[in-house]
């Protein structure tokens, strides 16, 4: 039977979520959230009514920590203050790499310059980026995401960053490994056409795009989008039942559609 991966960075699909939890489908949260620790993030969702725990979350910061430990990298962090605790166990003295996350107001010229100077001074500069999103939606409008600043440092130093987090293949693969399922048995749901849908599809999963959050009715241009993004799985009810192997869940997806007044895009 099918397993399910849900991205809930933005809009909670509470009804659907509860039904899925009650079903035989396995659930995992794949988020690029780097403005908070997993604990804080989970608390926020619990406050919204989700019955969720930290071990159900695959997030970039812990994934990055694994990479840093494996490669003996000591990072200079350019991240949001609230995610710093995720790096508590990592040696940060005498940095030999830079880790950049969604730092928001920490993206000051001074901080960027500091990160730049460290990179430009290294013989083998390593820049690890927690995600590569272009922008995200907050209550007070759209804001630049880590990807923009990752590109800024790449350009300044003439290097290529390594992305930890969506849409990197390894990130989805590690989430699937935690669940013990094959990509073909999983579906990713998210609002971000590149990071959620594109990334998942490149792993062999199917994906649904929800028209909430960051979704824009016209594609953001740029040469980054490969042609695979044009084939989003068909959300014909019948087909979905086949794919998910569960009538119950499919009904719920369509109930959510009515309840939230939004369309689950096909």
């Amino acid at each position: 039977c099918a397993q399910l991966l849900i991205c809930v960075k933005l809009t909670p699909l509470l009804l659907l979520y509860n039904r899925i939890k009650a079903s035989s489908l396995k659930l995992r949260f794949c988020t690029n959230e780097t403005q908070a620790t997993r604990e804080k993030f989970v608390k926020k969702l619990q406050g919204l009514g989700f019955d969720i725990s930290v071990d159900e979350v695959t997030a970039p910061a812990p994934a990055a920590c694994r990479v840093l430990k494996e490669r003996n990298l000591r990072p200079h962090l350019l991240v949001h203050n609230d995610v710093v605790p995720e790096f508590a166990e990592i040696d940060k003295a005498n940095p030999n790499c830079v880790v950049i996350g969604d730092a928001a107001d920490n993206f000051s010229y001074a901080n960027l310059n500091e990160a730049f100077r460290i990179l430009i001074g290294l013989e083998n500069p390593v820049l690890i980026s927690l995600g590569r999103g272009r922008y995200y939606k907050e209550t007070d409008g759209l804001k630049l995401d880590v990807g923009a600043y990752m590109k800024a440092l790449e350009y300044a130093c003439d290097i290529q960053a390594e992305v930890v987090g969506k849409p990197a293949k390894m990130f989805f693969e590690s989430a699937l490994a935690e669940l013990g399922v094959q990509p073909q048995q999983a579906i990713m749901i998210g609002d971000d056409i590149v990071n959620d849908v594109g990334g998942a599809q490149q792993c062999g999963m199917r994906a649904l795009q929800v028209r909430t959050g960051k979704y824009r009715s016209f594609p953001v241009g740029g040469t980054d989008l490969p042609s695979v993004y044009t084939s989003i799985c068909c959300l014909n009810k019948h087909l979905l039942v086949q794919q998910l192997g569960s009538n119950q869940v499919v009904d719920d997806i369509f109930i959510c559609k009515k309840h939230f007044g939004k369309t689950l895009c096909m």
Partner: protein
Amino acid sequence: MAQQICLWRMAARRALKAVLVDLSGTLHVEDSAVPGAQEALKRLRGAPVTVRFVTNTTKECKRDLLERLTKLGFDIAENEIFTSLTAARNLLEQKQVRPLLLVDDKALPDFTGIATHDPNAVVVGLAPEHFNYEMMNKAFRLILDGAPLIAIHKARYFKKKNGLALGPGPFVTGLEYATGTEATVVGKPEKTFFLEALRGTDCAPEEAVMIGDDCRDDVGGAQNAGMRGILVRTGKYRPADEDKINPAPYLTCENFPEAVEHILEHLLGERE
């Protein structure tokens, strides 16, 4: 010292009518004039050519540049100076847009007269004080909604007394990525910079020569626009720079005075 003269010089047989001269590194290095440069300029002015002084700058308005050069003993008029700020201004006027100016305060005088209320364009220069998250988001939203992004230039970084510092290039690149658009870059080595500099001189690129110390930005850029380029071995020049562009510089010589000598002897066409 051997002079390297590019083969295609033989082909372009038009008399010289305009000389573009780079400032920093060519006429002067920081606060000192290149020795003999003031004299050389006087001699150049004796020839029937139009002279223009061109530079990439994002924080010195023409008035300030003029003041510095005059103090160093150069005889220059304000309207002979063409900077990347001028190029940006011209573009704004052409497009008839109102810019959000992410430029140094000292550069603002060069934008006097351009409306900036309710902006529908973004201009990015070297302005660390504006490269904070809030201002970058403001620029980002405008561009996402269709405002053109104009970059004074895209330098990656520059040298300060206490080390290297990020130039405007990285921030422009970040905005381009986030919005899926491409900036219009107005400074050297863009072709349009050189063509704009010649506008009003009544000279075609083939009738002009550029003298500068930056092989790629000065000489390469000028030659790409159809001009001849003379590389001088002062300022930021490093040995073998001339091998880094293709075609090679029309001429590589020691300094501005030597470049002027070459022009006076070889490029002024038939004498009556």
